[in-house]
C-alpha cells in the first residue's frame, strides 16, 4: 500500500509500464512533497513522459501503485485531473484560433468565469510577451511563439499540482528565464507543487528543490542537487583540451586505472576521477608519449550535468 500523507503530493510505489516486450518503466518509486519543485531528468526515451502520463491518469500502469494529491490514479482519476495542470512536450494549440481566443477558450474549458478569464489573459499576455501577437492566428505563429502560448495558457486556471514536460523546448533564453522565474513564483506564492521534466541540467539546477534521475525506466538517483553532488563527491571532474583529439585519446584515457569515466564533449574531454591531482602527471605523460598536445587542463567540482552523466553511466551513485 502506498502511504497517503497530507504533506506528500505524489507517491509512486514500484510502478511498471510494459508495451508488449518493452518495459518503459521498471519499478519506479519516489515521492514529491507538496509545494516543492521536483525535477525529473533523464535522457530521451528514459521514461519521463510515460511517468507523467501515468500521473496525469492518461495511461494506466501495468503494475504498482501511485497516488496524486492523495487520490489513487486508478480509482480517482477525475479528482486528480480536476486539480492538476499539464504542459505536454508535444506542441498543443487551437490551430485555427487567435492567441486571444486560445487563452479564452482554454480558460472556459476549465470553467473560469468570463471576467476572470479576461484578467488572467491580460496578465499572462503581458508576462509571456504575447501582447503583440494577441490577434494573430495560432497557425501564423512561430514555433517559439506557439510554445509561449501553450505554457501561458496553462496558467489560465488554478491548480494544486503542475506537470511540465520539457516546457522550455523552443523558447529563447529570455523567455525561458521568465518561465522558470514564473514557475518559482507560483510555487512560492500559491503553494503549487511542480513536477518538471527536462534534459537541460542548468534549468533543473536553477529551478528544482529535488531531482530524480531516470534511465531505461529505472530511477538511478533521487535527492536535492546538493545531496546528489555529495553522493558523487568522490568524482571530481578534470577537464582537458587536447589538440588533434580523436577516438584513440578517449581509449587511452579510459585505460588509466584511476579514471572512472571519460566523456567526449565537443571541444573538451571530461574525466571523472577520485584523485585528479595525482592522476594529472600520469595522464599528461601518456598523452605526450602518444604525441598529443594538451592545451588546457583544469579541475572543477561536479555540476548537476556531471552527476547526471555519472548516474546514467553507473546506474546509480557509488
Amino acid at each position, binding site marked *: 500500500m502506498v502511504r497517503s500523507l497530507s504533506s506528500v503530493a505524489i507517491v509512486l510505489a514500484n510502478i511498471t509500464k510494459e508495451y508488449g516486450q518493452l518495459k518503459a518503466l521498471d519499478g519506479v518509486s519516489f515521492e514529491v512533497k507538496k509545494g516543492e519543485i521536483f525535477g525529473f531528468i533523464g535522457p530521451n526515451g528514459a521514461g519521463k513522459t510515460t511517468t507523467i502520463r501515468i500521473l496525469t491518469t492518461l495511461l494506466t500502469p501495468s503494475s504498482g501503485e501511485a497516488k496524486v494529491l492523495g487520490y489513487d490514479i486508478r480509482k480517482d482519476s477525475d479528482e486528480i485531473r480536476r486539480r492538476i495542470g499539464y504542459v505536454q512536450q508535444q506542441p498543443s494549440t487551437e490551430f485555427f484560433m487567435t492567441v486571444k481566443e486560445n487563452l479564452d*477558450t482554454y480558460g472556459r474549458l476549465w*470553467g473560469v468565469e468570463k471576467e476572470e478569464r479576461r484578467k488572467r489573459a491580460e496578465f499572462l499576455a503581458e508576462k509571456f510577451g504575447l501582447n503583440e501577437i494577441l490577434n494573430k492566428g495560432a497557425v501564423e505563429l512561430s514555433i517559439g511563439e506557439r510554445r509561449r502560448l501553450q505554457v501561458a495558457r496553462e496558467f489560465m486556471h488554478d491548480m494544486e499540482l503542475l506537470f511540465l514536460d520539457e516546457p522550455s523546448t523552443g523558447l529563447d533564453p529570455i523567455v525561458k528565464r521568465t518561465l522558470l522565474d514564473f514557475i518559482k513564483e507560483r510555487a512560492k506564492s500559491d503553494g503549487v507543487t511542480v513536477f518538471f521534466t527536462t534534459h537541460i541540467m542548468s534549468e533543473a539546477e536553477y529551478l528544482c528543490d529535488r531531482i530524480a534521475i531516470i534511465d531505461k525506466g529505472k530511477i538511478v538517483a533521487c535527492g536535492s542537487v546538493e545531496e546528489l553532488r555529495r553522493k558523487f563527491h568522490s568524482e571530481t571532474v578534470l577537464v582537458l583540451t587536447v589538440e588533434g583529439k580523436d577516438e584513440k585519446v578517449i581509449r587511452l584515457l579510459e585505460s588509466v586505472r584511476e579514471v572512472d569515466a571519460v566523456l567526449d564533449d565537443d571541444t573538451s574531454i571530461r574525466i571523472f576521477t577520485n584523485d585528479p591531482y595525482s592522476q594529472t602527471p600520469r595522464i599528461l605523460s601518456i598523452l605526450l608519449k602518444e604525441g598529443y598536445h594538451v592545451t588546457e587542463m583544469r579541475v572543477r567540482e561536479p555540476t548537476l550535468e556531471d552527476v547526471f552523466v555519472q548516474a546514467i553511466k553507473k546506474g546509480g551513485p557509488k
Partner: protein
Amino acid sequence: MSRLLSLLLRDLKSSVGLSWHLLASQLVMPIVYIFILGLTLNRVIGNVTVNGTTISYVQFLAVGVAFSQLMLGASYAGAMIFFDKRMGMFEQILAGPFKRYEYFASKILSVILQGLLGSFLVLIIASPLLIGLSLQPVGILYVLYSLFFASLFFGSLSLLISAHVKTDQALNVVFNSILPPLTFVSSIFYPLEIMPDVIKAIALANPLTYAADVARFGLFGMSSVTFPYALFLLPLLSTISLALAMRAAYRISL
C-alpha cells in the same frame, strides 16, 4: 453538463476555423445536384408518385441531397479527433477536468449541430423549388427528427471507424469507400418503390433511406413503405451506433 457545453463550444469554434472554406465548398455540390442534375432530370422524369402522393423529381431530390450533405458533415466527427491529436489537443483535453465520454459526446453533438445547419442551408437554397408547399409545424418536427437521428447515426459511425483506424488518411479511405454505396443504395436519388428487389433489400438496411423518407413525409406527406417502421428504426439504429461508438472510443490511444 457545463463541461460538455464548454467542450461543444470549443469544438464549434475550432470547427468553424477548421472548415469554414470546407463548409462553403460543401454547398457547391448540393447546388450542382439540385439545380443542374435535379432540374435536368426533372424534364426526363417529371413527377414522382409514392402511395398516391405526387411531387416533382427536383423536390424529391432536394430532400435527398440535404441528407447526403448531412451524412458527409457527420463523417467529420472522427476527423475532428484526428485533428485534435495532430494539434496536441486530444492529450491536453483528456488530461483536463473531463471524462472521456464527454469529449467524444461533444464531437457527436458538434456534428449534429453542423449537420442540421448544413442541411437547412441546402433546403433554404432549394426553397425556390419548394414554393407552394403548405408546411405544417408537425411536418417540421418530422424533418428535425430525421435530421437529428441521421446525424447521430453517422456521427457515431464516424467515431466508431476512427477507433479502429490508426491515421486520418485511413479514416478518409474508409469513408470515401462507404459513402457512395450508402448514398446510392438508399432513397436519396430515387424512391424505394422503383428499385430492383436486391437493391431495395439492401436499401432497407440503410438508415439514410429511413431518414429521407421521414423527412419527405414531413415536407410533402409522402408516405413510403418504410415510413411506419422508420420512425422507430431511426432512433434504434442511432442508439446502437452511439453505444458501439462510445465503447470503441475508449480504445483510442494517445
